[in-house]
């Protein structure tokens, strides 16, 4: 057993657990967005950042992937943590203005307005990649690609055409934390074949 502290509370964990898992097991809340228990954690959304402190030294880490260690001093709600969280949420509000889920999450952390202008009022996707991970790791197909990089990063079918790799199981829609996959889904699943004339008739 590994013993350490989260927000002053003594917690116990086994080797291989993450800080987030340990916190959840002990009923300590840490917000997440790109985390889903069904798939591997990617540490992309950075909402689950927590601060590790040791004397004057301190560092922020993503709790969803940070492995537990003996004697850690984890703080889930320090000013530094809040600063990251607030900015990310505020930027998300502008990036995904059409997602009620994002708005609700932001409101929970007292972010209700954003100083940034939105580039696409209908946008809901924040490219956490859960859809692609689920398709790859759970369904085993990998029909959804993470396309492009940097600010242009997005998800979709290869060559932006419905793909017959997709079996339309909808796991991506179910896993999507912002409801964005509903809009994208129809551009991924496609008719499996080109229907022409009856072969059997020949």
């Amino acid at each position, binding site marked *: 057993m590994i013993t350490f502290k989260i927000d002053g509370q003594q917690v116990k964990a086994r080797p291989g657990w993450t800080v987030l898992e340990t916190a959840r097991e002990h009923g300590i809340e840490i917000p997440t967005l790109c985390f889903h228990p069904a798939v591997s954690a990617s540490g992309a959304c950075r909402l689950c950042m927590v601060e590790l402190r040791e004397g004057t030294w301190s560092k922020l880490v993503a709790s969803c992937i940070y492995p537990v260690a003996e004697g850690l001093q984890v703080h889930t709600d320090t000013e530094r943590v809040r600063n990251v969280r607030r900015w990310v949420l505020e930027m998300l509000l502008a990036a995904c203005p059409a997602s009620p889920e994002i708005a609700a999450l932001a409101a929970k952390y007292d972010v209700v307005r954003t100083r940034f202008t939105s580039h696409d009022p209908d946008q809901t996707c924040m490219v956490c990649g859960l859809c692609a991970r689920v398709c790859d*790791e*759970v369904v085993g197909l990998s029909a959804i690609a993470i396309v492009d990089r940097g600010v242009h990063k997005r998800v979709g079918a290869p060559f932006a055409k419905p793909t017959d790799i997709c079996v*339309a199981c*909808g796991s991506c*829609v179910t896993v999507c934390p912002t409801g964005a996959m509903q809009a994208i889904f129809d551009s991924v699943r496609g008719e499996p074949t080109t229907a022409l004339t*009856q072969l059997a008739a020949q």
Partner: protein
Amino acid sequence: MSAQAKTGVFLCRCGEHIAPHINLELLEGMLRQEEGVAHCETMAFPCLKPGIEQITQVTADKQLNRIIVAGCEGRLMLNKLETQLRPLELLKGQIDMVNLRGHVASVSDLDPDQKAQKAAKLMVAAVSEMNALHPSSLTRAKIQGPVMIVGDGIAAYPAAAELARHKIDYLLTVPSNDPDDIVDTVHETYPGERVSHDRLKKIVKEGLSNPCATLLVGYKLEMLSGVTGDYHLTFTNPNGETEKFAAGAIIACLDAQFGLPGPGFGHDGVKVMIPSEMERHIQKSGAPKGTVVFWVSDYEIGQPEFAALSAKTAWQMGVHIRQCAPTSKVVMLYNQQMEVPLTAAERAQNRALDILWVPYDKAMQPTVQDGYLTFCNLSDHVEHEILWDYLVLSPQRMVSGQALNTAHILGLVHKHGRFLTGHHARVRPEMVGREETYLAGSARLPCSLQDTLAQGRKAAAKTAEMFHKSAQGDLFVPRVVCVVDPEKCIGCGQCQELCDCGGIGVADGPGGGLPRIVDPMVCTGGGTCAAACPYHALVLQNNSNDQREARVAALAQRLGPDESMAFVCGWGGLPAADVAGKQALKYDPRIYLLGVPCVGQIDACAMARAFKEGASGLLLVGCLPETCHHSYGLDHAWARVSTIKKLLSLCGFDRRRIALAHADLNHPLDFVKTMDSFTRSIAAMGPIPKSLENQNKLDALYGLIRNNTRVRHLLSAGLRRPWEEIYRGDQRHALDYDRDFSKVLAEEFLQQRLLMVFRKAKGPFNLDQLTGQVQEDQKEVATCLWDMVKSGVIHFSHMKHEAVYTLRK
């Protein structure tokens, strides 16, 4: 294994998603009372590492052999649980999930206690199903060489070469064992690919001559039997004798053929020809002199999707002509809708060779005249002329002749479509690529020679991978597949006709009355075949009808009078419900959802069971007809629902108590409407009044649909076959059929009811007594009794001058 079922239930708090909404203490308490529950506990997050470690511990300590996790979407989470709990040796089917979060917690305004009640019913139903499971043991699939490569397509050679690379023996049917012969005729199926011929020859040589190869020169495939790993193929050899070969796997290499364009295109085979004819001309008399016009006529002959392919190969031929006969002129004439399929470098080459590309207005079809061709110019819309000495048209592409025949024998001809592409339902990840494993070549879908060669190689690489896995002992028979009980199977062949994945065949021989076997490596676990078996000889293992009935029964017994239940299909209804739950859309809480992989696998007797056990209404929520992953699951479900409807009517109940619905997972709001509408209409009808008479009718209904082989035969015979036209909700049968079928049902139902009367009390009964019991028209009862006497079910005698009937022993 696991003779005694011991099922553990783990309830998930899921942070704020379940615990505050459902009174989990109450739920846990209720479940602990249940006999079938060996263990029950509430956890923070059973899905996270701490939770999984806890489950592992408890399962080992209490020697549980079944686990149900009540949390969120099993569609997402089950995979992880199955993987992480593998050390416990719990196999697929022994772990299940109930989506309390999405089907109970978030979707209604009931209070936490009421939600706990609802959850308890769902959980008990799930536990009952689990306890009825007879888990199959884990079996390894054995697949060993040789591989049979049939079909004479050009893809056979890269496939062969690849197999040789993996040191796998193969049998290869070839028209000739001389590589030159083969490459010299390849233009018949792949014209315009001269650049590749040298490389191709190398590949062909590799495939033909290496120690792994056994060549079958001039053999013709006649018959296929057996299953993956153990195929038997019968051929006619060149001497007309029959020869039989065994193979572990098959690769079909089939190429599409060319047909001639219709008379409207002026084809004469001499000056106006298709590419393969031009190739023959080049081969015989060299590159043509004069002006050669290639008209990419695919739009006009009704195959626009192949225009780019035709254009590219035509251009390659044009390049060859220009290079060999520099005085000749080459013109490419193409429909404006087509994009010129040349890369930048090819454009440069095109310029250097001075090949003219001329687009024409799509509104006007060019007209072939002797020595010239008129077309509508794009820029001025005036009719222009191109002079030609030779005109090359696009060919009609099709699968025909020997290739089609072979495809039929191998079961590769599916559904509709001119080519053989993509017809196996791909419902399991390991199924993806199976189609490619089997099939390579332009008969799949017309493609370039390069593509075909790559397909052949890929098919072989995948086959080799399968062999390798099998040799390593890593290839397992999928758990949820159909198995045949040879004791019960009479060889009627219904299942084989209905099978959409091609997994059912006969062990050896031509078919007829022989018992069927299932190829588990091909079976997709759709299960409509099992549901259709008149004798319950076919069982979907680890997901059987008995399990389903147990679940239905457990739930139906606990439903309130205005509550109803719904089967939701794993591709439509269930994900729609999951999404609705995720979005916390509210709908009538009086509906109870039971997930099934496909509504097509629900045997009609499971539907009947619901009513027998007291359900007021049953809904089947499938996917949209065109999107059914098992081809006709929804259609088959419709036929079964319709049968139950007729029987409900015969009982005198409202037949709308059972209904079929569709859901698309991406339209959760529509799903909510479906739920509300059905639940309210059932609640408005109220329950089926509880009376002995009604119960007798329901028992008879169930008994009929479960055991009456005549009805079951008729039902499955009436189901749509995979090769039939796609279902679009149109009229399935002529009205006459419906009338006949209804008549049979009425007859058999009455017989069933009478039988039950006989079974309940010894008898003998006279006609009046029996008529009174079933409350039907005396004349009909008398006719029915006489039928039963004739078929030997009951015995007819006279007692005190009165005709009486007794049950035959």
